[in-house]
Each structure stands twice: as C-alpha cells, then as structure tokens.
C-alpha cells in the first residue's frame, strides 16, 4: 500500500507534532548535586492525597496531608508525636525539656533552643521566630490585628506574651489562661510549625495578613527555600505538572541525618492498584494508601521484597444519635440501641479483616493505643445485650409489633435511619452488620448514604442542621485531646459547634472546662476518662473502632516505621538508609 504525498505529509506532521509535544515535557535539567554529607541513594514516596497548591500550613489552601508530609522535615517544632501516640520534646531543636509552671491562674512555658539551631540561610532560630509564629496565628479578627485567613487560632489566642532572652535562645511563653494542649503549639506534628520571622515578618498587620493569605504557592516554593529541619525543598526541585517534589538534605542542618541524597515525594493519586503495581515494579519505595482488603493482601504477597505494616490511627468511627429525634430523645431508646449492637462482631467484619490487632473502642476521648486509654464503658455496653435492650424499650412504652419491630403509641414504629457518607464501603459494611443485630432487639434500622452529611446548616439533611436520626462517621483527632470539647459540650442555643447529637450536661461542660485548661498530662488524662464515663451515661454517641493505616516499603529501605499521628509516614525519614 502506498500513501499519496499529501497523506504521507499529514501523517508525518502528526508524528512530528507528537514528538515535539512529548519533548516539551518534564522539568529543566538541573545539575546533579552530590550529597555533601556522605548521603547516598534516593527513595520515592508515593503520596496518595491531593498534590498541594500551597505550602503554607496555617491557611485553608495549605491545609492538606500532602503539605504536612512535605513540611515535616522542613519546619522545626517543639514537640514530636511518636508512633505510640506519646508526645516528646524535639531534642534536635531544644537543648532541654521545656518547663511548665502554672501559678496564679496563668501558665508559663520556657523553651531553650539549641545554640547550633539555624535556618538554612544561616540565621539563628530564636525567640523572634516563636514570637512571630504566635503573632501570625493569635487572632482571626483583623480589627484586633489578626488575620481572617488563619485556619486555627486555638491555643495561640490564649497566649499573652512570647519573650526572648539569652540572645533569643531562651523563649518564655506566658498564657493568660492555662492551655492543656500547649505541647501542640509551635509544633509541626500538630499542624503548623515554627515560622521564619526574618523572611515573613511585617510590622503592618494588614500587610502581614496579605502575605499570610497568599501563603507559599507551590509554583514558587518556600520563601528563600528556607528550612529549619533535616530536609530542604529547593524551588527548582518542584515539578508542578508532574506533581513531584524532591527534598534534598539541608546543608545547614545540625542534627543527625539525613542519610539519603534525595527524598522524592511523587503524587500517585488514590488508586490502590497503582500503588501496589508501583511498589511491585520498584518505581515506588514507600506507599501509604488507604487500606483496602485486596490491596493489603496483594502487598503482603510481595514479601520478602516488600514489607508492610498495619497500624491503627487517629481517626475513629462512631455512631451519633440525634437527641432531638422523637425516638432518640428518650435515653432508654439510645441505651437500647447501643446495647443491641455487637461491637465485637462489627469490628471483626470490618477493620478486623485487616489485622487481628483491631479492637473495639471503649472510649471517645482516648484511642486504644494511647497510654491514657481506659475502657470506660460500663459492663452492659461491653458486649451485646439484647435482653436488656428489649426491657428498656418496653419500659418506655414500646410494644413489639407483629413483625417484631417495636411500636410506640405516640412515636410510631421504631424505624431509625442511619446516615453516612456516600461511597464509603467500610461504613456501608459497618451499617449492614448493625442492621440484623438491631433487628434482634426490635429496632428497624436502615442505611442511607447522605451526600450532604457534612454540609452547612443550609442543607436540611446535614449534621449541622440536625436533619438526621443516627449518623456514622469519623472524627480525625490528635494525641492531644482538648479539641474534643467542641464535640461533647452542650450546644449554646443554635450554635451546636460539633456536638451534632445535641446532648450535654452542665457536669460534663464543667469537667471539659478543667480538661482544656489542665496543662499537666497526667491530671488531664484522669479528667478525660472521667468525662468519657459520663458520656456513656448520656449515650448520645457510641464509639466503634479506630481506622487502620497501612504502610508498605521496599525491604531495601531501612528505618521506615508508620506514624499514624499527624506526623505522618515521613516522620523519621532523615534516619532512613538504603541498602
């Protein structure tokens, strides 16, 4: 077969066009940098969450898991969240453990910064950076010199002053009122991190707010490629089109590591097959995907070349009752509902499939693997108790109908719809396991995928608007637990905060008041467990289980360990070595 000249020309143009287009891909060929500190090797981390558009962690645009993973080895912080959920001071940055004093209703913390701690441009890390970090996050009100773009002012708003001494290497932080989660401030593992004042500060609060609002767009990178940690992100190492960032060792880093020459963070999307095939082919070194059953099995099949680990993280599934529903306003109905559930079986059928370590969560404030955890659930809730559930319903005037479902003379048949997020197989299975259990106790439960579940009050079926009966969803927390106050404190009028079950007692509110102002971790743990015991009495929410996290990595990479707190899988990446 022969092409005419014209068609041959057409084809040729097409091929040439394709080649030209292919050619303009990729980033510039930067000169290869040799590791100066004896580093060698590179590891590719497959990031499953969205590629960040902005790297500034304190605004909405930078509030992403992928940003936190990148900044983890870049912005310094005072405390670290460890894999066992304990919280320890960062001895790379601080010369000694920060002190805590509470006298006369205030709180004073003193931090001593190591003399050798410097930013990557050589400027020492000092109290000025602490002061600036506080000042930029202390208020969301522009009239008070704050900035409305700031995502969280919690904690910082309670600080009265941040003062430096000893050439700025000693930092004294004074709180107007005590703040329990003080260890989470000035700390990247709990959101944020210490900011470089010398590059960001502006005396004019309006101008400062403008620059905070603009943040650090990914296409520009960090201001002056700054770093105060083991890794550095140079602007030329950001490939926005390819969604790849390459971290290189910070030449001014004073601590140990990093041992690798490059840590590559490549966005691979959330398709589990891609992650598995990527680690199988060796294109990816470490993956941290959302665990799915077949995915976990496939990865386990790749041993011994690939190692993997399941742990249980900071997100817990629970069932919320709307206490304004005619049935569920009755505490007996809520208690009966909770007793009818066989939570052991629910765990077994869901997260228990991933790991035999899965446990029923018997506490709302603390997680199973936290040192403070106590199983505060009273005996009658520890295991399924259908008999008692039926008795409670009958006490409240319910009678069993011909189909076995209880009916109330005024409230009608006991039909409860359980709302949850759409397209979430784990939650769907959870509810599907619950339905027959509830039926045994004469409760007719149904599953409803509600796309508006997390919408604002203007959507009538949202949690915020109260348009639900029962709802299954997760709270994502932190090892520091003061933020749970907004979930369990009594609603103030229309403002339910995050207390979607709309239930609370003055006693719980008062205890929470102490809980959030108790800076001593041990005393706080006692209060937390006390609060949870009271929450069981109200039975407005049933804790179910912690969600698993899953890490897999090439066995050639040494030192990888999952950290299911906000510190994330790269928490110790400066210690990784490649065999």
């Amino acid at each position, binding site marked *: 077969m022969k092409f005419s000249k014209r068609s041959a020309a057409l084809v040729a143009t*097409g091929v040439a066009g394709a080649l030209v287009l292919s050619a303009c891909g990729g980033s510039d060929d930067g000169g290869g940098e040799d590791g100066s500190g004896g580093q060698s090797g590179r590891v590719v981390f497959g990031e499953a969450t969205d590629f960040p558009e902005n790297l500034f962690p304190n605004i909405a645009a930078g509030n992403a898991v992928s940003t936190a993973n990148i900044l983890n080895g870049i912005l310094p912080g005072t405390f670290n969240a460890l894999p066992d959920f304990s919280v320890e001071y960062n001895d790379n940055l601080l010369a000694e453990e920060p002190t805590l004093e509470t006298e006369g209703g205030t709180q004073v913390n003193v931090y001593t910064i190591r003399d050798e701690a410097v930013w990557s441009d050589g400027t020492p890390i000092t109290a000025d950076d602490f002061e600036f970090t506080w000042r930029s996050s202390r208020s969301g009100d522009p009239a008070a010199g704050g900035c409305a773009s700031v995502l969280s002012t919690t904690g910082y708003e309670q600080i009265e002053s941040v003062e430096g001494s000893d050439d700025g290497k000693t930092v004294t932080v004074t709180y107007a009122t005590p703040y329990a989660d003080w260890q989470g401030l000035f700390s990247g593992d709990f959101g944020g991190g210490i900011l470089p004042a010398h590059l960001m500060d502006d005396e004019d609060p309006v101008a400062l707010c403008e620059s905070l609002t603009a943040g650090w767009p990914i296409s520009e990178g960090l201001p002056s490629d700054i770093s105060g940690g083991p890794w550095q992100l140079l602007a030329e190492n950001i490939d926005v089109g390819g969604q790849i960032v390459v971290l290189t060792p910070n030449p001014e880093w004073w601590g140990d590591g990093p041992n690798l020459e490059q840590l590559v963070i490549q966005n691979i999307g959330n398709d589990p097959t891609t992650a598995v095939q990527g680690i199988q082919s060796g294109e990816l070194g470490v993956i941290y995907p959302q665990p799915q059953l077949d995915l976990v099995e496939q990865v386990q099949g790749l041993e011994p070349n690939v190692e993997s680990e399941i742990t249980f993280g900071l997100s817990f599934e629970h069932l919320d009752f709307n206490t304004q529903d005619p049935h569920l306003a009755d505490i007996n109905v809520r208690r009966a509902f909770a007793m009818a559930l066989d939570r052991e079986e629910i765990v077994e059928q869901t997260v228990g499939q991933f790991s035999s370590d899965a446990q029923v969560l018997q506490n709302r404030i603390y997680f199973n693997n936290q040192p403070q955890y106590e199983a505060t659930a009273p005996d009658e809730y520890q295991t399924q108790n259908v008999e008692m559930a039926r008795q409670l319903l009958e006490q409240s005037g319910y009678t069993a109908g011909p189909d076995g479902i209880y009916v109330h003379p005024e409230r009608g048949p006991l039909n409860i719809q359980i709302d949850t997020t759409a397209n979430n197989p784990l939650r769907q299975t959870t509810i599907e396991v619950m339905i027959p259990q509830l039926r045994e106790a004469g409760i007719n439960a149904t599953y409803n995928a509600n796309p508006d579940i997390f919408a604002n009050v203007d959507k009538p079926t949202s949690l915020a608007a109260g348009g639900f009966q029962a709802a299954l969803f997760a709270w994502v927390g932190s090892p520091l637990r003061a933020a749970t106050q907004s979930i369990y404190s009594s609603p103030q009028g229309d403002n339910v905060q995050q207390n979607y079950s709309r239930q609370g007692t003055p006693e719980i509110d008062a205890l929470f008041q102490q809980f959030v102002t108790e800076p001593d971790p041990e005393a706080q743990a006692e209060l937390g467990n006390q609060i949870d015991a009271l929450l069981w009495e109200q039975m407005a929410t049933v804790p179910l289980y912690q969600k698993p996290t899953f890490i897999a990595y090439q066995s050639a990479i040494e030192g990888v360990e999952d950290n299911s707190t906000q510190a994330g899988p790269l928490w110790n990446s400066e210690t990784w070595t490649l065999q």
Partner: protein
Amino acid sequence: MFFFTIRRIIASVFVLLASSFLVFALCAASFDPLARYYTLQPRPPESFFANLREELGLDDNFFVRYWNWLTGALTGDFGETVNGTPVAEQLGSRLLVTGRMILLAMVIAIVLAIIVGVIGAVRQYKASDYVLTFLVYLLIALPTFWFAALLKEFVAGGVNDLFGEQILYTIGEETPGLALYADGWELWSDRLGHLVLPTVSLALLAFAAWSRFQRSAMLDVLGSDYMRLARAKGLTYRRTVVRHGLRNALIPLTTVVALYVGTLFGGAIITEQVFVWHGMGEYLIQNGIGNNDINVVLGWLLVSAVFVVLFNLVADILYAVLDPRIRLS
C-alpha cells in the same frame, strides 16, 4: 470555506455560553467548598468561614457570580481555584500533559485503523480478516482500566524481567527527580519508557473500533460502480483501491476520529489515572468535582468544549479536502 468557518464558530459560542451557564448552575447548587473545614478538629473560627465565603464570592447572588466568571473568562481570566491558584495556569500545564499522552497514540491508532480496516475489506472473509476481526472485537470488549492494568502487570513486568532492568515504567512521565541528575540519552529513554504503555493502551483501544468503521466504509466503496469503472479503464488494482477507494472511504473515519480526539483533550480519564499522568481528566475529577471547585470545572468545560468544536471544524474541512464534491461555502 471562510464564511462557513465563521458561521460555525459563532454557533459554537452560543453552545458554549448555554453549557457554561447550565454547568455553573448545577455546580453552584451542589458544591460547598467549605464543607471540608466543618469537621476539622478543632473547628476553625467563624471569622475564617466568613472570610473564605467572601473571598470565594459565595455570598453573592447566583447571577452576579456567573457574570463575574463570564466577564473574567472572556478576558482569559478563568478565576482562581478554591486554594488560590489561577485556573488558567493549571489548565495550560494539564493540557500539555494530556496532549503529550494522546498525540502519538492517536497517530498510531489512525494509521493502524486504516491499515487493518483496508486489509479486512480487501480480503473480506479470508483468514486474515477473521483473525483481525477476532482481535479487534477482543480489544473493543476490554474495559480500559483492565487492559491498562494487564499491560502494567504482564507487559511491563514481562519486558522488565526479560531484560533484567527497568525498561517500561508504569507511573508518571519520567522517573521523578531524574532530570536533577541525568540528561541526554538517559533522560530521553526514560521518558520513552514511560510513554510506551499509555500510548499502547490508548492506541489499541481506539484503533479497534475505528478499524471496523474503516472496514465497512471500504467495503461500501469497493462495491461501487466507479471502482469497477476505474478497473475497466485499465488501472491497476492497487491504484484503484488506494486512489479511488481509500480516499472516499476515509470520510466516515474522519468524523469518528475528529469527535473522539476532540473529547480526548478533555482527558483520557481512566488511562491518566492508571498511569498517573496528571492531565485534564484528573483535573476535572479530583481538582474540580472532588474539591467542589466551580472555577476548575468551568475552566475545564470551556477548554475541552473548544477542542471538541475545533476538531469538528477540522473534520468538516477535511471532508472538503477528501471529497472535492463537498463545497463548504
């Protein structure tokens, strides 16, 4: 031809206007870009929400919002994403990624479709026709995500095992960070190794359906009177088939290809996802719908619609080139 083109362009402007309005209305009614902050622990202060609502213009009247978007779009400003990045900037780089992925694949698919279609028609009901038909139907029946996964698992795995080193890659456009320490042949062979599988995947699946169009068009033409006349006048078989037959039989394929390629610029969604190319399809699904981002969805719509219109126009013009009887004016 000139007036025809102008008329078509004016008509498509109205289509674009109407569709952008419709999509804007649907997105405005269903998107809540603030939703992901309501359940943050601790919940951001009210001032944060008020500020974000104002910044994203969510407090404005629907028509005002649409007008603002439209006037911006007319001047080339597609607004910003909910995270403050200009949409136009992102669209540009996304379009290049998709373009790089599909162009070579489409050229291969067109050439293959023509060859296989013509062979099938010329040798109708011969063994080669049956074999090709079987293969083509097999490809048509394969879902994209599965075919791509098979390619990754067996072709990439097999080739790499065979050579004992990584030759074919399954993720992205190049080995991440390679450009930092390699150049020249190493970099280019790496990019080629990344391009092979998505290209094969897209090309084979697209060519399969097209070859059937080409075959039946060719069969129609082969049975027509002018072909017999051409033979009777003493032209060689090969010359009649190529000059008189193929040229006429290309017209139906032109339409199909133009429509397909036009829509493909909106993203080969599944292929992009499987091979992790951050192109237009991912942009719509993740950045647009996933992030409740109205400007992204609208920007995507406009750009991909322009490509559909453009390729339709190209198809119309190609008709005229292929068939001198068609006069567009």
